[in-house]
């Protein structure tokens, strides 16, 4: 550094992503900054030491809020640090920041994470560059509808503060003909004769492939916890139901199964072999070649020595295990990169249009709303030939799908049971689509002996001890984890006293989608976990069996006295299900009960229930 020369201005982009959307947005912001001549680092909040924040000059935060108003897992420790009372009001003096939130205004707790973060940062003495931007899934073009104008405002304001941020000026003209970005990954190809002769286990192959893959939101978990094979595939819904819900049973074919009731299992789905072949052919790749995927050297990172010592994997296997070609939709950037590799003029134009601000809504209609897959998009633009490096970076990663376990290790030793609703829907253009994982599972038979890689982890429902009274609310497939709870308590009851259980179940029609009817009803009889004699109960709401809609929350209010008694006796409430509104409806019903029984206001009741939540006595697992 010569005398008088200040270090170049740079931007730090901190993101907290749960499903990858905030990461995409963060990468987009980083890219736009770099195009204007400002280097940017993009770091996840769980990889950044919050105590270093005061040293930063300019930080952009990109944070998601989940349906229940929660922050992504990767944000929790970082946020806890920021909430400390001991931090002074001027701790972040001199730090400039801007917050962009990703949320859904269909939920009550809309973008709560971004709102709280923005307030707290100001409260700690940092200065806002511009007002927080709130991306909304309900917007016709999703969060990008807000992000685009917000970013322009960000660049021009930052430029006004200090022109050195953007030596090329705040507006950048992107030449339509040159792709100024570089792919982030590189591929090393190996000759076949250099290979090891030992046969790899399935587990090793999966670990190797997924360890190399860019789609690493699951950091340490490249290696599956175990492999399962299906032993049972039973349809639970009866003819006439609008849904297809299955009961699956699995056994381990590798290590012993270890989990607790209430836990979640993630399965890696298999992709259609013809689709994989079609993709490989379309992209002009050699399926039998052996590759290593690693980060490209940049001026920051230097030579990646790890890559040299890593072991190669077959290209076809890498695609099968890590690149989602038939279900997830590509992002806007994919279309931008495609436009540079299109040789047909009309395709190039169309792709440039889709990648532009004007074409955003049309892109959304064509792509996200139609759930276009990578393969479909590539087939719609046949002149495009994208190098494999770009495909590795831009094809959405194949994600494992999570399910709440519906068995109990005590009652069903060495088994895992799942209750799965087979997803299918019709797009606005009247194309029919199916969920990748649920359809694949539905198509499996025990005879095929397919080995499924799985990972176990804790969900939001901690396993209750046998002396904890329970109030369980599980309409539809939400009943799954509670089947495990009740089966487990039933075994525990054989050797020692157990606390009462009240279970509220709901579905549309008693005759067609009353899942596990025999199981619940057996427990209402003498000695069962849901019997009156044991202090518990089983309550059902069949929403469409009568002209007036009856839901679980109505049943809960009907039983307010007993619910109140159980709460006073120390009961914990567990709510599970697949609806956006249901958890808040249940919360409202409980607030009303508490308010009525204590004679206090609804606000006090609400505070009381929030307190229960903090103590772990109010747990919700809501999936979409």
């Amino acid at each position: 550094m010569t005398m008088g020369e200040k270090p170049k201005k740079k931007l730090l982009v901190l993101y907290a992503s749960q499903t990858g959307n905030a990461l995409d947005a963060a990468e987009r912001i980083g890219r736009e900054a770099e195009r204007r001549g400002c280097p940017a680092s993009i770091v996840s909040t769980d990889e950044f030491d919050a105590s270093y924040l005061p040293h930063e000059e300019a930080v952009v935060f990109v944070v998601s809020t989940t349906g229940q108003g929660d922050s992504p897992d990767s944000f929790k420790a970082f946020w806890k640090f920021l909430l400390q009372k001991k931090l002074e009001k001027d701790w972040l003096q001199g730090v400039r920041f801007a917050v962009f939130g990703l949320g859904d205004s269909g939920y009550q707790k809309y973008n709560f994470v971004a709102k709280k973060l923005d307030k707290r940062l100001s409260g700690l003495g940092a200065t806002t560059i511009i007002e927080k931007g709130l991306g909304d899934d309900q917007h016709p073009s999703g969060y990008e509808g807000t992000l685009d104008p917000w970013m322009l405002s960000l660049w021009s304001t930052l430029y006004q503060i200090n022109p050195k941020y953007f030596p090329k000026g705040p507006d950048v003209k992107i030449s339509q003909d040159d792709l100024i970005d570089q792919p982030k990954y590189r591929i090393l190809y190996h000759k076949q004769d250099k290979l090891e002769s030992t046969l790899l286990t399935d587990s090793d192959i999966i670990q190797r492939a997924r360890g190399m893959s860019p789609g690493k939101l699951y950091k340490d978990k490249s290696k599956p916890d175990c492999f399962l094979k299906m032993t049972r595939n039973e349809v639970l819904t009866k003819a006439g139901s609008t849904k297809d819900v299955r009961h699956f049973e699995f056994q381990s074919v590798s290590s012993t199964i270890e989990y607790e009731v209430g836990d979640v299992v993630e399965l890696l789905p298999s992709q259609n072999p013809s689709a994989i072949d079609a993709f490989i052919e379309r992209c002009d790749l050699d399926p039998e070649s052996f590759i290593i995927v690693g980060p490209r050297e940049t001026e920051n990172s230097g030579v990646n020595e790890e890559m040299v010592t890593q072991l190669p994997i077959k290209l076809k296997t890498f695609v099968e295990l890590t690149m989602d070609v038939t279900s997830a939709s590509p992002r806007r950037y994919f279309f931008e990169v495609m436009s540079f590799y299109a040789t047909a003029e009309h395709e190039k134009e169309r792709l440039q249009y889709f990648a532009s601000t004007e074409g955003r809504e049309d892109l959304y209609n064509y792509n996200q709303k139609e759930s276009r897959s990578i393969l479909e998009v590539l087939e719609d633009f046949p002149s495009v030939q994208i190098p494999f490096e770009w495909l590795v970076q831009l094809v959405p990663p194949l994600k494992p799908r999570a399910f709440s376990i519906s068995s109990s290790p005590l009652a069903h030793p060495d088994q895992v049971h799942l209750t799965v609703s087979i997803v299918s829907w019709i797009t606005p253009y009247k194309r029919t689509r199916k969920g990748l994982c649920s359809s694949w599972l539905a198509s499996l038979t025990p005879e095929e002996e397919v080995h499924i890689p799985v990972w176990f982890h804790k969900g939001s429902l901690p396993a209750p001890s046998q002396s904890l009274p329970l109030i369980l609310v599980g309409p539809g497939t939400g009943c799954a984890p509670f089947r495990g709870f009740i089966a487990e308590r039933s075994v525990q009851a054989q050797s020692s006293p157990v606390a009462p259980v009240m279970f509220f179940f709901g579905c549309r029609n008693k005759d067609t989608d009353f899942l596990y009817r025999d199981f619940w009803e057996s427990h209402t009889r003498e000695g069962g976990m849901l019997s009156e004699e044991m202090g518990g109960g089983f309550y059902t709401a069949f929403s469409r069996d009568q002209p007036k809609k009856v839901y679980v929350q109505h049943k809960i209010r009907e039983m307010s006295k007993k619910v109140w008694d159980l709460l006073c006796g120390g009961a914990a409430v567990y709510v599970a299900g697949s609806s956006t509104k249901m958890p808040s409806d249940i919360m409202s019903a409980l607030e009303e009960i508490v308010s009525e029984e204590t004679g206090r206001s609804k606000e006090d009741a609400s505070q009381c229930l929030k307190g229960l939540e903090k103590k772990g006595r109010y747990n919700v697992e809501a999936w979409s």
Partner: protein
Amino acid sequence: MANQKTVLAVTDDVVLPVSSVLTIMAQLGNERFDPLIVTQASTINQFPLDSSSVDAVLAISKTSDFPSDKICGEFSRILKPGGTVFVCKNLEGQVEDMQQTIQRRVTLAGFLEPQCLDLKSIKLSTFSLSFGIKAKKPSWKIGSSFALKKPAKVLLKVNLDDDLDLIDEDSLLTEEDLKKPQLPVASGCATTKKACKNCVCGRAEIEEKAVKLGLTEDQIENPQSSCGSCGLGDAFRCGTCPYKGLPAFKLGEKVTLSRNFLEADI
């Protein structure tokens, strides 16, 4: 003697002097009792005691894992309804985190009213204590109805200051923030990708019964396009194109269904 209480003292350590147990219990307000001592208890599956047989349990440890969830469950089983559990720890450093963790564990095992106690002042011969958690086993009995006279205050007195040294994050939200958010200019649910998961308006049923091809036979057999784009596929079609949703075709040739790998069979 009729009044003598039974106390189970448990530790994961190798030894636990009776004198220490007596001193601790005296400090915690319990005199005249009969102690049972169990050491090296971290691997115990079940205590050799009948359910609802002891008046109090005293768990002493220097490690963070003891007592585990399982062992807390056991405490709950062997305690009489209304009995008390004391979990006493000697830990350096992160006391607040550990206090919270233990309170949670104890709550999930079914105990009520966890309280934190400062035990630094108790003088013992071979070790010292930093803090303790005291909690009660509820006094319901199986099959009997609940005592309705339970004071409502107990439930509402729930402490919100679990996280003693963190600010209340909900205080960061303004009244504006807490109001139900306004949905963006609604073009109705017609613009959403599919019917809501919990569709109540009936769109889901309509979609399920939707006619697959809304074209005339002639349009299928002999497709024409005045704009020239219809044959290029969805990516090039305009919003009102009748061939929307169908694969690309050559003008004049019959339109066929594409192989769509994730196409559900209706």
